[in-house]
């Protein structure tokens, strides 16, 4: 390897042993390069597509909410109840993101709401292009609500803007109160935090105060609602939050 620049060209090992003046005309030669300053966001393309989605949604008076959680936190159950109890008045449709299967979209369709399933395959999150494709398929009516169930994962979805108007993070009491401390990026990105499965609080060791403290350290002032999507306890607050954001 060239001892001066680290390049692997040729067999010259000691760059400075040449006993002659030279203008870099020797054997291994350095191809001319130029440095180009880009100063570009890595996710610029996704962010631009997200802005297109945001504009399209606003133009059509559609509220899009991105729901994110670990697998099993109760996103689909919450959506089922929300559609059953609000669907007649709010016209809800759903974009379902999962790595595989159409099981969740089937559960949503069983409630009567239109749903489109996006399988991300190896991908661990939805991105703005996937939402654009989903909206094209779903073709939601003007002045309606699109609930986006992101892939169950508390890391990756936080990084990808979809063009949604609001982000909701759902944690269940069976997961442990330390979730905001472990995944601060996700909680920092949230407009609303839902603590689900509160009907199970008597049976699990979950410190609600520690959870609230963690959530507010990651995201001071974030609204946190406690509810049970199974029993319906506390869901009225979630419905009020949704209604308040309707265009």
């Amino acid at each position: 390897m060239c001892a001066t620049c680290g390049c692997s060209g040729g067999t010259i090992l000691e760059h400075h042993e040449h006993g002659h003046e030279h203008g870099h005309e020797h054997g291994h030669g350095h191809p001319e390069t130029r440095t180009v300053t880009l100063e570009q966001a890595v996710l610029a393309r996704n962010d631009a597509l997200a802005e297109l989605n945001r504009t399209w949604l606003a133009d059509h008076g559609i509220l899009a909410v991105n729901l994110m959680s670990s697998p099993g936190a109760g996103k689909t159950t919450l959506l089922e109840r929300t559609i059953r109890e609000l669907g007649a008045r709010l016209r809800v449709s759903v974009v379902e993101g999962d790595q595989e299967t159409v099981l969740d979209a089937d559960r949503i369709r069983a409630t009567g709401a239109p749903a489109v399933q996006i399988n991300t395959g190896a991908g661990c999150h939805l991105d703005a292009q996937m939402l654009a494709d989903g909206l094209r398929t779903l073709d939601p009516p003007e002045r309606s609500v699109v609930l986006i169930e992101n892939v169950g994962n508390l890391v990756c979805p936080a990084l990808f803007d979809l063009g949604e108007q609001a982000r909701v993070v759902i944690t269940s009491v069976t997961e442990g109160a330390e979730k905001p401390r472990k995944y601060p990026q996700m909680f920092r990105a949230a407009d609303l935090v839902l603590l689900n499965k509160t009907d199970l609080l008597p049976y699990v060791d979950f410190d609600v105060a520690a959870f609230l403290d963690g959530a507010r350290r990651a995201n001071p002032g974030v609204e946190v609602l406690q509810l049970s999507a199974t029993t319906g306890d506390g869901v009225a607050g979630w419905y009020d939050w949704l209604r308040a954001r309707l265009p």
Partner: protein
Amino acid sequence: MSTQGGSFLHEMAITQSVVQAVCERMGDAPVRRVCLEIGTLSGVVADSVRFCFDLVTEGTTLEGASLEIVQPTGKARCRDCGAEFALTDLLALCTCGSANRELLAGEELKIREVEVLA
């Protein structure tokens, strides 16, 4: 691969975004070096990006390019007392006890520069 809950796939998507953006900007020019800025609070693990880079660049104009990653550390300004302080994680409080802070640095995720064959 990652320190964040075994999730490694978003670094793959991030690295693919880097390659796509560089190819769009630089056309057919063979790329010899890529310099990224990945803040320590960005949620992206630099080592995982390094791991993905060789895989993702294979067969592209970036194949064989070296990868430099600059990692700006976290900095915040307290909205309550106005102090500026180093932020080692997103849960750290200001010395005044406030969690109400504005992030000034640490969340960078950008392509700083590339070196291409002239």
